């Protein structure tokens, strides 16, 4: 079973995804694939909160900022990829967060993520919904939004279940899962 979870910020997506991953794994191996590469103290605090939140849930943490399908080497079970948003950021801007965007980033992300949907017993993907506000973004940001949307749409196509979290409430856009 493959599940895509999207929605706005600070919505409970990660906690919800963890619960789903635990359920899907049915006692089997489960991996938390952390894609965020910390750059400052704020990032590190955020990561610490996530680590505390999933303590005692039986996840093995894999820190993988790029080349996402490498999480499959020597592993098998249920994978929670958190998040597609951070993965794309790392793949688009490999050297630092400024500079030119790597135009092959979307292709690499999609190939890697699709490999996970094919090979893993179960996968849960967390992404961010960043598409509905009244801002005229610069071309840099627009390119990033468009790229993330391309990955989201591909994942939504191949996943059995697509969920939007809205203020902690669950909207099923595709499939379903007994919670």
């Amino acid at each position, binding site marked *: 079973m493959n599940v*895509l979870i*999207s929605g706005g910020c600070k919505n409970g997506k990660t906690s919800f995804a963890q619960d789903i991953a635990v359920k899907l794994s049915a006692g089997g191996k489960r991996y938390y694939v952390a894609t965020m590469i910390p750059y400052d103290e704020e990032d590190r605090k955020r990561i610490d909160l996530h680590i505390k939140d999933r303590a005692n849930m039986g996840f093995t943490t894999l820190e993988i900022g790029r080349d996402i399908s490498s999480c499959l080497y020597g592993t098998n079970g249920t994978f929670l990829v958190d998040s597609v948003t951070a993965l794309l950021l790392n793949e688009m801007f490999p050297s630092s967060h400024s500079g030119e965007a790597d135009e092959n980033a979307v292709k690499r992300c999609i190939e890697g993520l699709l490999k996970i949907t094919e090979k893993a017993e179960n996968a849960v993907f967390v992404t961010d*919904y960043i*598409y*509905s*506000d*009244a*801002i*005229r973004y610069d071309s840099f940001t627009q390119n990033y*939004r*468009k790229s993330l*949307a*391309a990955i*989201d*749409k591909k*994942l*939504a*196509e191949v996943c059995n279940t*697509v969920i*939007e979290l809205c203020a902690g409430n669950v*909207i099923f*856009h*595709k499939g379903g899962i007994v919670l």
Partner: protein
Amino acid sequence: MDFIIGGAFQGKLEYAVKKHKLDDSDIFTCSENAAVSFERKCIYAVQEFTLYCVKNSLDATEIFRNNRKKWKNGVIICEDIFCGVVPLGADMRAWRDMTGRLCAYLSSEADSVERIFCGLEQKLK
């Protein structure tokens, strides 16, 4: 009229083209620099037209209401730009408000309303 809303890059136009078998000549794409035309079956990117209205002190909802006959059997597509935080700039605030009001009007007039999320259809009406 079929009203299609959703976020940026979510696949709204692709959905409309497939569902209504549209080709390029059926689609009018709005611009922030020009008035809307009601002569084609599908009016796309209505949020650009509402920005044009803000810049030219026009009321988008009134313009649509006055031309209801022309679009009542058509397809209208708009980005739901009114979900995010209130923008700091007065023009952007007016744009957001005007788009929200127009979408509420178009939803009420529509025979069907869909929201497109990651390329998937969510039936709203």
